């Protein structure tokens, strides 16, 4: 087990309180600062937390490298759309159904993970992420012609909540916040449970874990399944806000962004998932700030890159591997160049 798994004695300043305060302020401030349409966009960004949690669990606690969790968001979204429209289920049941289907898909995809490990599993899941979009176009019965379908059933606020467009968005926002809190709570309990300990044991050394009586098959398949269900829930709830589900939204870059967010935030840490999701939603906004620098010759050329959020994510992924290997959530002080310096020292002194 790594040091991070052992509960460290709580000394010094409790950063988590700052975190709770920031989250509380943000949860209240976001609906006040946005109009109906913007609020819906914000809700969608926050909802990504569930998917990041899933990836975080799969890689950070389970040690299964997945580059394809965007696929399960898609399964959850299309599943929910199918249940609510074609089978005319009520929304809560349809969302639950979509989540379950994504979880089952995860268990299925998790089966190869019993034998395929590490970097090879990353390879298979990346392939899955790339093949997912064309695959969607092949099952029009569920995903609509060309992999696009609209959802007829609307998800409206109850009458006591109001019937303006803003009230509707606010209701959806509240649902998203509730679902995310529920997800966080559930994830905390899962990783602290017997199952969570088994997962970490398998991650660190699966042979040793098996010797201690951990059922490898069960743990690996469930790790993949549960994490996929989390991603699927994100997709399922998204359908309530955006009644048009399209294969366009499930480009492989979405999976890679999820992976980047989970790693940048900090694997194997729930705060990491929160931070990673924040990065996922804040980075595209930073790009807008850079617009002022346009028009400068070479500088503008470079800043054009910074406006691309995927570029920022990719670069951050590379840089953080060196500067903060545990992700943002494990930074205890200002990142230093100490690891780099230490490496140079190791390399260029006699030993």
């Amino acid at each position, binding site marked *: 087990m790594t040091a991070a798994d052992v509960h460290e004695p709580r000394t010094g300043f409790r950063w988590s309180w700052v975190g709770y305060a920031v989250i509380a302020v943000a949860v209240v401030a976001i609906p006040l600062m946005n109009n109906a349409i913007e609020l819906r966009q914000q809700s969608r960004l926050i909802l990504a937390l569930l998917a990041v949690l899933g990836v975080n669990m799969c890689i950070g606690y389970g040690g299964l490298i997945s580059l394809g969790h965007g696929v399960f968001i898609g399964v959850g979204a299309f599943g929910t759309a199918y249940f609510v429209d074609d089978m005319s289920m009520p929304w809560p049941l349809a969302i639950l159904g979509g989540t379950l289907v994504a979880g089952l898909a995860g268990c299925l995809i998790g089966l190869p993970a019993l034998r395929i490990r590490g970097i*090879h599993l990353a390879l298979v899941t990346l392939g899955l992420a790339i093949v997912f979009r064309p695959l969607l176009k*092949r099952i029009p019965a569920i995903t609509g012609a060309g992999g696009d379908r609209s959802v007829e059933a609307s998800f409206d606020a109850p009458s006591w909540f109001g019937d303006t467009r803003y009230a509707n968005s606010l209701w959806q926002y509240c649902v998203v916040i509730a679902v995310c809190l529920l997800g966080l709570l559930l994830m905390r309990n899962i990783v602290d449970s017997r199952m969570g300990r088994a997962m970490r044991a398998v991650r660190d050394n699966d042979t040793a874990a098996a010797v201690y009586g951990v059922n490898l098959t069960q743990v690996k398949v469930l790790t993949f399944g549960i994490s996929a269900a989390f991603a699927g829930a994100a997709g399922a709830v998204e359908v309530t806000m955006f009644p048009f589900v399209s294969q366009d939204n499930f480009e492989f870059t979405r999976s890679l962004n999820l992976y980047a967010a989970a790693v940048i935030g900090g694997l194997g840490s729930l705060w990491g998932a929160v931070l990673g999701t924040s990065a996922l939603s804040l980075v595209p906004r930073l790009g807008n700030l850079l617009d002022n620098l346009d028009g400068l010759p070479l500088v503008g050329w470079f800043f054009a890159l910074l406006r691309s959020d995927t*570029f920022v994510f*990719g670069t951050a*992924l590379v840089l953080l591997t060196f500067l903060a*290997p545990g992700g943002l959530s494990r930074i205890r002080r200002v990142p230093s160049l100490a690891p780099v310096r230490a490496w140079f020292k190791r390399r260029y002194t006699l030993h």
Partner: protein
Amino acid sequence: MDIELLLQRIFDALFNSAIYSSLALALVIIYRSTGLLNFAQGEMATFSAFVAFVLLSGEVPGLTGGEIAGLLPGVPWPIPLAVIGAVLFGMIAGAATERTLIRPLEGAPELAVVNVTIGLLIAVNAMSREWWGTSGRLFPALFPSDADDYLGIGGARLRFTTIGAWLTLLAIVFLLGLLLQRTKAGLAFRAISINRDSAELNGVRVGRTLMYGWALAAGMGAMAAVMSANAVLLDANMMLRVLVFSFAAATLGGLDSPLGAILGGVIIGLTQTLVPAYVPWIGFELSLLPPLVMMTIVLLVRPQGLLGTKRVERV
């Protein structure tokens, strides 16, 4: 079944096979010496192809003609020179990547290297996309590719570009063989592949040798990208499909076997063309599926691939 059509499809497939084999070979060179998969191999290659494009057209993103005139002498360059330029650029970039991003991670967990190569994949892809846009660009052919530049065999057309791609691949393999078997750097490379620690104790400069390996791999990738840019249009996502096909090829042949990479490339190229042609449900769009399924099955049933060496794991 129409034999002529089948033969034609096989000939068409052989072109793709050559591309996949080249990139798979690049992946194998790195895997063999370090046990790493370079997820950014394809994107680095695409970027090199864009460098060739700049040398050929003189069109630099974000800069007007006046600003660029002094920077690049004699643009537009002739195709062979531009390709050599791109391959050299790729090699330098590959070596620099190894030196600055991979070597410091010596002894770090596997995930760290995956992070760096995936980060590179995302970042380099975004770079190509931001600078050159997503619209495909025409890329000139390296070999004669007019309508009547083909060899008729049994009623089917074996195009000169296909022959050229295979000659290039064989030349690369031949040079690589010479390099590995006849030079000191090649000897060092083989020693590292067999036992890195012992090689280091015997005075082999591991870091430097691996850097050469990365340079070679990136150069091969650049060559594959330049050839494939002519066949499809040059755009930022061009090598992504190719990368997955090449991964499948390398896995199928055995990740540590150069010969396996070529065999895998041929098999994957044929599967990717023939299966969609005869199974309408799969079609061109899903042509990734059969190779992907094959790769998964190989990893499940025979992880060492067709020609690779079996690894025994110790606890």
